[in-house]
Structure formats: C-alpha cells, structure tokens
C-alpha cells in the first residue's frame, strides 16, 4: 500500500503531525484528555527546544568560545549578572537579582526614550504636517483622489483622525460642547479602525486554519498511508469512549447520592 521513495522519518512524521493536529481539534468538541495531552506535549517540547537553542546561541557561541578561545574574559561580568537573576528564587540573596534587573531595565529605559521620541512621536507628527492644498503652476488646487494617501483630501482626513483620537484620550478636560463633538468624531474614527483590525484578525485566523487543513489534506495522500483518515477515525473512537466513561461516572455518582 505504501508508495516507495518516502523516507521512514517523513512517514512517521506525517502520522505524528496528523495525530497531534487532530488531538488539538478535539477541543472544538470540548476540553478533554486528548487535548490536554497535546497541550502539555507542546509546552514541554517548546520549552525543551528553547533551552537547547539558548544554550548554544548564548552559552556556547557568545560566552564559551569568545572567553576560552579568544580570551575575552570581561564577558564574565554579563554572565554573572545573568546568573544573579536566578537569585530571585532564594529569598536571602534575592537582592542580588535586583542589581541585574536594574541594569536590564535601566538600559532598556535609557535606550528607548530618545528612539521613541524620534520614531513614534516626531516622525509621525512630521508626516501628518503637510499642506491641505496644493499649489501648481496653474494656481491653487485641491486634490480629491481618495486612493492616493498623499492627496489633499486624505491629508485632511488624516489630520482630523489624529487630532480627534488624541483628544478622545485626553482626561484633563470634560468632553462638553466643541470637545464633545471632537471626541465623538474620535470615536467614529476609532470604530472604523477597529473594524479594519477586526477584519484583518479574522483574515489571519482563517489563514491559519487554511494552513493546517492544507497539511491534513497533504497527509491524507496514499503515499503517506492516509494517516488523516485513519487517525480521524481513531480519535473519534477514543473521544466517544471518553464521553461514554464520563457519562457512566456521572451516572454512578448520581446513583450513589440517591
């Protein structure tokens, strides 16, 4: 039945991947042991994976080789600071961890401030500050092309959006009169943007599903021995058995009580 040419590891891989995928999908029925098994396997494997990668990337390539082979012993300082983080688990020396944290957080805070002002505040302002009309050789014009983000009409809408939304998140004045009108505009803009985000999120989730189904379809091929069909049937049987057991247990507890 099996076609030649597929290496054994790919074949087993197909079966394992299909099985695990189906285990997770059983959650759609409800939370159950198969799903829990898949979930814990996943956490365990990914933690194990991360440990190995981290040890090689940092421990071997950034610490061991430079220190031992190139004699850059000053790297002991960050290594020590790193180790001190774990002092947090020993109450008596927990203060050591604070030194490391102060270093990490301090570095983060110091480097991020000017960069945020530059990239998220000033650059964004700069791009919003653009003339609302265009001067051409033939005189003053107003470009109405909605599809060109740089057209005058779109510049104006962008300005209204930025101003009204910034104003909406302004807590030191009451939203009354003109303020209320601006805040209302802000909400309208927010809602449309949220709508866009909503649409895109749905798009994302559907793509993920398509990706998984793609694999399931691929693994339903005869060259893999049709693991999708076989394992689907198996999963349903196991799940049905589990539901039956649960019901039995439930019934017996009810009987005991009565």
């Amino acid at each position, binding site marked *: 039945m099996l076609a030649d040419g597929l290496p054994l*590891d790919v074949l*087993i*891989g197909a079966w394992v*991947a299909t099985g*695990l*995928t189906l285990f*997770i*999908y059983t*959650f*759609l029925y409800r939370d159950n042991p198969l799903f829990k*098994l*898949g*979930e*814990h*396997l996943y956490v*365990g*494997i990914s*933690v*194990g994976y991360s440990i*190995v*990668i*981290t040890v*090689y990337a*940092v421990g071997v390539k*950034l610490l061991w080789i430079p220190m031992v082979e190139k004699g850059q012993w000053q790297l002991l300082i*960050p*290594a020590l600071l*790193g180790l001190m*983080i774990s002092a947090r*688990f020993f109450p008596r020396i927990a203060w050591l961890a*604070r030194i490391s944290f102060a270093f*990490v*957080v*301090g570095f983060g805070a*110091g*480097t*991020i*401030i*000017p960069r*945020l*002002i530059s990239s*998220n*505040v000033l650059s964004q302002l700069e*791009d919003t500050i653009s003339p609302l009309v265009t001067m051409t050789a033939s005189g003053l014009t107003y470009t109405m092309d909605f599809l060109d983000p740089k057209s005058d009409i779109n510049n104006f809408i*962008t300005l209204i*959006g*930025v*101003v009204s939304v910034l104003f909406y998140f302004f807590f030191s004045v009451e939203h009354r009169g003109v303020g209320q009108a601006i805040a209302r505009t802000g*909400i309208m*803009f927010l*809602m*449309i*943007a949220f*709508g*866009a*985000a*909503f*649409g895109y999120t749905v*798009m994302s*989730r559907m793509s993920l599903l398509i990706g998984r189904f793609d694999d399931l379809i691929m693994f339903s091929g005869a060259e893999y021995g049709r693991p999708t069909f076989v394992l689907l049937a198996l999963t349903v049987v196991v799940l049905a058995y589990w539901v039956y057991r649960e019901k039995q247990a439930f019934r017996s507890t009810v009987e005991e009580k009565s």
Partner: protein
Amino acid sequence: MQYYVPHPASEALLTSASNWMIIIGGFALILGLVSLIQLHMNRIQRNVEGWGYSGVLFAAMFVMVIAGILAGGENLDSERELTGYGWTYSYAMVPLQGTMFSLLAFFVASAAYRAFRARTKEAALLLVAAILMMWGRVPLGEYLWAFSGDIAQWILNVINSSVRRAILIGVSLGMIALSIKIIFGIERMYLGGKKE
C-alpha cells in the same frame, strides 16, 4: 541617553552594553523555566487531578533537550537531513502550535454568529467597517464588486493610519513616562515584581 552623542567612545559603550544585554537575556530563560518546573513539580507531588499531564510535559522537555544535545542544536545536519531534534520540531512542535491557534478560526465564526451585535451606533459602524474589510481583501469580494478593494485600501491607508498614528503617539508618551519614572526611581515594580 547615548543617542545624542555620536562620539566613538559612546558608540563603543553602546556596542558592549548591547552585547551584554544579549547575554543576560539568555539567562532570563532560567526565570520562566524555574517557575514552570516549580508549578508542575508541585502538581505531581500533590497528586492533583491531571498530574500525569505534568509528567508528560517533563518527559517531552527532557527528550527534547537530549535530542538537542545530540544534534548540537541544529535542525539540519551537514547533509541537510533532519536531525532527531529537527524532526520533533517539524512534526510535533510546529503542528501543535499551529493547530492551537487555528482553533481560533472556529471561535471567531461562532462568536460572529452569537455575540457580534450592533448594540450601539458605534458597534454598528465597527461591524460595517469589518464587513467591508473582509469583503474587500479577498479575491471573491473584489471579483463580485471591484470597488470594494479600493474601499478597503482607503480605510486602511487613511482612517486606520490616522487612528493608529494617534494611538502610537499616545502609547509612546506612556512608555516614555514609564521609562522616566524608572530612571528616577519612582517606579520600582519591576524590581521585586510585587506591588509596593
């Protein structure tokens, strides 16, 4: 603060400080690891319902670490064949994580049917924008109504951009304020992870 100073001495400082940060970042893994081990050891020790799953977790982790050491941390060996470590990654970890998040596709659908109601004018506006977006960003939508693609594009480029820009500015101010508080020692939450 080094940002404003282009002098090589300050650049050198940034070079080594950022390199140190990477090394310290590697050790941060220990934090998460120890909490995870504590949590699940506790479950096993107390024989809480479902402690067996914690055992599964440890077994999976252990197997992965051993496989990783055998493979030298590489997914592909010198002949571009999967190592044991790479195999577990490709055929167990990738499908598991991928599937976990694809579950959401189903939940979005059921929530769309049950909970996404236009209770207020604002919510109605949100839903209309969402429908336009879902319509305009797929081939079928553009095939049925070519203009829908342009509408989606305009919403993204103009309305969405302006709102996101305002939010970006607001959030950045918040982050800058937080960083200032950290530097001046007003905010110490990060040190002990406990509320003062």
